[in-house]
């Protein structure tokens, strides 16, 4: 990692430690154009409440609704994530906040609950998920025991907790949950300015949920800068990657119709170029955009509750040579790194920021991701399948250490003995090696049908400049017919795997990477009309066959013989024997009756 790349993070981290101690509410917006006409907008809102007033249920900057839930559920630290889409690390570089503020697709929740034992913790966890479900309009109440795990090494406490507390970490995911405006509205309501002023006034559901990738997070943790002086810290973020072209389309005409032929950007150097033949020319200049165009509204001034008005809540990361036009009154400060500039906001004065299209020579450097991971289901058929996880370490010199954590639903039954590894170097040669060569440590908790899922945590090391592929086979369970959801033929979502890279280069926080979620097709009965027809005809055929077969193989005997056969007296049994003997001698004459 280069020094430049760290600036983003360091800047934020520095601000964070600074503000958490001195001010009670802080918000910021960080904008960075990304390759392929994308724009990263990272909103951050932080509030503090002293532990004392929190305990006394006296809330100022801490949202009351959330605070009461946490107190009721004995939750000391909470992390909630709503994510949609996938981060394209290949084009966009490393993730914002190093992945620590994003979750897997859908909803992810983990919390440390103070409870005397596991059962009490589980009970409180259910309380927590049910309450949050109501608060955030999400199906969090579906996080039951089958979706809950207790990770061992993948998550760390963020805050400072008294040594006396008995904390239990519980983790649950809902990979199929669709994140939408009904989750954004309660999210904004937790903010002191409630989306009416400050940077949060830019958050519009239409634009936000048209993003290519989007992640909302809520983190609550106690912070003690000095012993005896503790705060409950709430940190909310919204990170979105918008497609500039798409966001700039007017709301009244959002359809990307073919452009009129005179507006086509063509490569006129081509010999065949003519009126009706056009080889499209991809523009090399940086796209122009403005806040109003992208978000559909202006930033309606600073939130008056941010206590230090001289702060610069809006930051933009473009080369200094780029022209940026801002609303008069806002003060621009250029940072010495050559790429970052920040702006102050006036209270209750709309703020807009315009960047015209411009040919630029320097580009904001993007880092190579430290590790890239891909997880897919392989094989086909209704009975078995395989999981394939590919880790790629792009670094030429450093090996990467990380914790790989995955939870599998109980109906996916992995065979851990089939865990195999192969390594491909940069020369493209692939060789099978024992998996133990990469796995330093593993924690495996097998599933129990209908009670809990499989939990697998692997501490791994990937050697430099190589690609390691892990594979294992699994079996698909057959569900009871009532256990299928209404869209049974879609398949079942498997939660993304979480990869925690150990903090490197003196950073405090580990880097998190999540794979995409998976769709597992299970053997599904045909719940439709033909199925019923087959069932019905099979019954009829079975009945017909049964009665005919019965007629064919049954031996017909007279009533006296039958009573003799069934009689339990000695004489009766003897008589029966005689009849049987006679049958044997005479052959099946009785049948001829």
């Amino acid at each position, binding site marked *: 990692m280069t020094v430049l790349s760290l600036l983003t993070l360091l800047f934020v981290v520095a601000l964070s430690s600074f503000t958490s101690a001195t001010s009670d509410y802080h918000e910021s917006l960080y904008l960075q154009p990304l390759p392929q006409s994308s724009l990263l907008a990272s909103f951050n809102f932080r509030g503090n409440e002293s532990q004392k007033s929190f305990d006394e249920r006296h809330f100022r900057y801490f949202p009351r609704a959330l605070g009461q839930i946490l107190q009721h559920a004995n939750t000391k630290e909470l992390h909630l994530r709503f994510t949609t*889409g996938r981060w394209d690390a290949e084009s966009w570089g490393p993730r914002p906040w190093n992945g620590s503020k994003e979750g897997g697709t859908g909803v992810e929740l983990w919390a440390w609950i103070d409870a005397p034992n596991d059962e009490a913790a589980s009970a409180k966890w259910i309380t927590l998920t049910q309450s949050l479900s109501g608060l955030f309009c999400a199906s969090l109440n579906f996080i039951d025991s089958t979706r809950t795990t207790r990770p061992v090494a993948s998550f760390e406490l963020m805050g400072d907790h008294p040594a006396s507390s008995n904390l239990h970490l519980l983790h649950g995911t809902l990979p199929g949950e669709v994140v939408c405006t009904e989750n954004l509205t309660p999210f904004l309501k937790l903010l002191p300015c409630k989306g009416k002023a400050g940077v949060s006034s830019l958050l519009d559901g239409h634009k936000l949920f048209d993003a290519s990738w989007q992640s909302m997070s809520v983190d609550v943790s106690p912070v003690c800068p000095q012993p005896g002086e503790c705060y409950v810290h709430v940190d909310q973020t919204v990170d979105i990657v918008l497609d500039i072209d*798409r966001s700039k389309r007017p709301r009244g005409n959002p359809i*990307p119709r073919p452009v009129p032929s005179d507006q086509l950007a063509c490569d006129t150097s081509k010999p065949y170029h003519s009126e009706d033949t056009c080889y499209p020319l991809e523009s090399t200049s940086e796209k122009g955009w403005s806040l109003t165009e992208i978000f559909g509204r202006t930033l309606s001034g600073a939130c008056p509750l941010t206590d230090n008005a001289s702060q610069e809540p809006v930051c933009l990361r473009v080369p200094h040579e780029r022209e940026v036009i801002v609303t008069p009154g806002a003060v621009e400060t250029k940072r010495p790194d050559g790429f970052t500039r920040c702006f102050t906001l006036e209270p209750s004065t709309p703020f807009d920021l315009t960047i015209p299209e411009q040919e630029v020579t320097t580009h904001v450097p993007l880092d190579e991701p430290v590790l890239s991971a891909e997880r897919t289901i392989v094989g086909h058929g209704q009975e078995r399948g395989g999981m394939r996880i590919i880790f790629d370490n792009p670094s030429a010199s450093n090996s990467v250490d990380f914790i790989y954590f995955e939870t599998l639903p109980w109906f996916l039954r992995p065979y851990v003995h089939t865990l195999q590894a192969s390594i491909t170097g940069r020369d493209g040669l692939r060789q099978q090696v024992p998996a133990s060569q990469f796995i330093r440590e593993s924690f495996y908790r097998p599933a129990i049908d209908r009670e809990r899922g499989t939990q697998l945590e692997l501490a791994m090391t990937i050697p430099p400049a190589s690609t390691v592929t892990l594979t294992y086979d699994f079996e698909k369970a057959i569900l009871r017919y009532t256990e299928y959801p209404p869209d049974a033929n879609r398949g079942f979502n498997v939660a993304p795997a979480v990869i925690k890279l150990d903090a490197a280069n003196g950073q405090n926080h580990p880097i998190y990477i999540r794979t995409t979620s998976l769709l597992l097709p299970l053997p599904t009965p045909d719940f439709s009309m033909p199925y019923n027809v087959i069932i019905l005809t099979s019954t009829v055929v079975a009945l017909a066959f049964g009665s005919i077969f019965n007629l064919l193989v049954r031996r017909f005997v007279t009533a006296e013989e039958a009573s003799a056969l069934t009689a339990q007296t000695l004489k009766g049994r003897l008589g029966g024997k005689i009849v049987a003997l006679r049958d044997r001698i005479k052959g099946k004459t009785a049948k001829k009756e």
Partner: protein
Amino acid sequence: MALKSAIRKVRSNPHFLFVHLPHILSFICIVAGVVWLLLLPLNDYSRQTYISENALLPGQVHAYFSGSEQHIFRGYKKELEGVLEGQTAEGQEAWNDAFTPAVSDKIQSILKATGLKVATQNYEYTSSGITHQGQNVYAIIQAPRGDATEAIVLVAAWKTVEDELNLNGVTLALTLARYFKRWSLWSKDIIFLFPPDSKAGTQAWIDAYHDMQPAFVQPLPLKSGALQGGLVIEYPFDHRFESLHILYDGVNGQLPNLDLFNTAISITGGQMGIGTNLQEMWDHDDSYEMRLQTIMRGMVKQGFGYATGPHSSFMPYHIDAITLQTKGEGWQDEMALGRTVESLCRSLNNLLEHLHQSFFFYLLMQTNRFVSIGTYLPSAMLIAGNFTIMAIALWLRTGYYPGSQQASKPTEEQVTTTTTTTEKHDDKQAPPAKADASNNIIERQLALPLTLVVSLHLLGLIPLYIFNNIPHQYYPTATYTSILANFILPLLLSATLSHTLTPHPQQYHLIKSFSLLILGLFLSTLATLNFSLSFMVGLLCAPLSFIHRINPQTTSRPLRYILSTLALALLNVLSPPVVLLAVCWYFGADVETVLTQAAFGWDVWGVWTQVVVWCVWWPAWVAGCALVGFSLFSS
């Protein structure tokens, strides 16, 4: 009461019950099976197609692919033509239209400029001594808010099924890739695949997508989620087209979900106003004959089980796919095809679940009429059932009714025959000879019939191996050799057996019984998987039910020789290699080409037809021939 007395009459006449009745029943089954199939095209037995999956909403969206997109289409086409000209030697008239690295690079650069993720895959297959190799280029449009769980595939092979240059098809796919990238409504990833040919490329790609690829096929560097549907575009000429020909047959007779086909018909016909054809029926007037012909063509393709286009390779992985081929000279241009594909992709994009609502087993007789499995299955089942009936009848007959000679020459003949056999066999094996034999279960001598039938089925592996593994130039020789071998083998078998082991008459019946039992079992199972193959093999095997060893005791020697020679001649005409030659002659195909294709199918596509031919049909056929042979050699 009349029925009851009739039954009683039948029961009291064992010769009729055990000898004539099964023949009558078998014959009725075969006739009924064929008649059943002939009834299917009638309105009363077929149904109008309909869209079963409501989520598809075919043709409910406006297709915007038009206007300036055509300029870009022309630009891309000129670009590809430039590459083709560049790789043509000086002074050559026609283009060198091979899929060279230059073409691959051009396609990749266009896709990359559009902002798609591009990857390539090399593959190499060897079959019948011919190496098929190439490089697949593919690109993925990642669904804007998707999470790589589902995907649609759009295939434009560089060479069409008929090995023509698919320049317009490839260009159209490139233009669509650029156009689709702008839309934000995709809920599934869209994969654009450009294989160099229509035979091996798609197979290599789809195998690797599921990580099931053989050693000489590279794994895919870039992947997406579960594939929900596939579309193949073919536009191999420069003029405008008249109608679209839809190919839907998969490998081993598997079919895509009928909903996909119906959606394509509904969009092309209803929304775009383009005519559609299927099974190369260009002038379909919806008459009985035309419908029957369409069904027959579909059944032939299904029965042979080969891949009819790039879409066929998807079917084994439960991915529904079809090929759209442009045909004729009309006034529809590439933009119309583009809009059709756009609308189809929009429909597939609407899917919430994997296509499952509609039928997977059907016979199409017109673009809007079909018969479903419940209606047509009895046809093949009846034909398969005829073998089972005969097999069971023979089994009963060997147990309860020693033979027709009893009627004329009772007891003594039987006793002498059995005693002669007893001398040669172990005493324990001797059947208990009784005067009143019809009332007893006669002990069956199973060893010889079982061994013979089982070993014949195992012997089928030898021609199966030979016909899939020798170099292609030897295939005609191998065919003629196998005809000769087929002629000699049963005679040799019967001569050897009748002189060394002198089988009991009962054992001839048992041989036939087992052979037919296995045949009936296989064919009825196969009928549910590949109806057409089961039906065709069943019809070709039909004579086997009625061919017996002619009893030397009841038939005079000259008549016996004449009859058995006739029967042998008939059977040899119906032997697998002779049927192959006849089919090749009928379709005007070259035997070597057909067999090379078949071996390619076995090696690459995983076609199972050869297994059915050599391990089901052929053993039954040899057993039938051997039975006739026994009547020549037994005294």
